[in-house]
């Protein structure tokens, strides 16, 4: 036993953050939005659970996907939902998605010097009925885009989306042009391909896939959606926008 006087000082440290893996992805169409995420939650090489949702319905026109530090993510979603409820009580309507996007920016920047360690992707329907995707960094920088991947397999998925959604490095046949917006069936197929690809090559991605589809009032994508097996409607209001969720299995190894 060493006497107290001879003992060296021991530095203790507490790390308030962890990285919980997983990947999220959102794509907007002309009159719909798809917001997807896998359901694996891990810490290092350990899988904590095979079902931890990362995608949450906020209103009938907005769905939020959260990736990074799961504890921060869940807390952040809880606080956003609370602010949206207060808005409903004050204004007797759901907050428009562009306003939710700005709200998320201020909420994230409020924690500029002790940030929520999360990447957010907000998808849904704009007030004019068009599909929208907003992506954020952990301190609130945001941008509206047509598609965005985030999380562990962002580097695997984003270049694939650049190619298949923005048609990057492709030239249209003479006299033709590439579509500005893709049909829902194509988007869903690309989302599934992105996640099966990421599952194959990334250890933190897998187990399950949740795809939320938000349709605008009278969207023509409804027929192609209803033909999909296992689609579940989770619309809450009669505002016209409709929300669906499609669940799929991913490889568990």
């Amino acid at each position, binding site marked *: 036993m060493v006497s107290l006087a001879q003992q060296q000082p021991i530095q203790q440290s507490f790390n308030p953050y962890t990285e919980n893996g997983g990947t999220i992805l959102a794509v907007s169409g002309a009159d719909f939005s798809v917001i997807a995420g896998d359901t694996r939650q891990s810490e290092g090489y350990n899988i904590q659970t095979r079902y931890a949702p990362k995608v949450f319905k906020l209103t009938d026109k907005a769905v939020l996907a959260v990736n990074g530090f799961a504890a921060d993510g869940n807390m952040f979603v809880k606080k956003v939902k609370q602010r949206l409820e207060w808005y409903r009580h004050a204004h007797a309507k759901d907050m428009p998605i562009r306003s939710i996007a700005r709200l998320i920016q201020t909420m994230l920047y409020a924690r500029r010097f002790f940030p929520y360690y999360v990447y957010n992707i907000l998808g849904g329907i704009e007030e004019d009925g068009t599909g929208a995707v907003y992506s954020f960094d952990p301190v609130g920088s945001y941008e509206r885009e047509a598609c965005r991947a985030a999380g562990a397999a962002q580097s695997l998925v984003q270049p694939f989306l650049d190619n298949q959604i923005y048609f990057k490095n492709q030239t249209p046949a003479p006299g033709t042009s590439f579509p500005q917006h893709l049909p829902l069936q194509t988007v869903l197929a690309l989302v599934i391909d992105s996640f099966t690809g990421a599952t194959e*090559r990334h250890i933190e991605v897998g187990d399950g896939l949740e795809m939320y589809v938000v349709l605008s009032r009278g969207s023509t994508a409804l027929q192609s959606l209803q033909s999909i097996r296992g689609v579940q409607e989770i619309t809450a209001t009669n505002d016209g926008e409709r929300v669906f969720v499609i669940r799929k299995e991913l490889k568990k190894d």
Partner: protein
Amino acid sequence: MDYNGGSVIAMLGKDCVAIAADLRLGNQALGISADFQRVFPITDRIYLGLPGLATDVATLYERFRFRVNMYTIKEGREIEPETFAHLVSSTLYERRFGPYFVEPVMAGISRTPTGKIKPFIAATDLIGCLNFAKDFVVAGTASQKLYGVAEGLWEPDLEPEDLFETISQTMLNAVDRDAFSGWGAVVHVITKDKVVTRTLKGRMD
């Protein structure tokens, strides 16, 4: 590994293989050359890609050239792709505790004893651990991106022209998301009786 940047990918097709590499040579974030060849012909139907530290790329290419020449003289025949892969592996493992900073990728067509042809791809890590894949192999600073795009675009039994399109799209879209790779690319498609080499224009930013 990302001091000079650069990426290579090889893909298997139906009786054909393809290997592609970018043309960037950098000094950290500063671009130096848009005409840096990192893929080398070893025999008429074996190509070797060497992404990694540029000084080691040059040194290793010369060592492989020497050892393949010695093999050709001693054996009196051309080296087979499988044999060459093991030559690469053992050359790198000789430097197990002071390695060359390269991750070789090779593509070729081998002849079986019955006279049939077999397309072949392989890659190793910097100390020579071999990976014989049945689909595609990637290496370099854009390797993660290459994995993601290739996993989405590649399919079995592609004909030479379709394989060229697949590997080119994979390469271009992957390097456009990588700061250390890009500045154009080169693609070699190897079939049993010819090799087609094309240089691709890419984004220059």
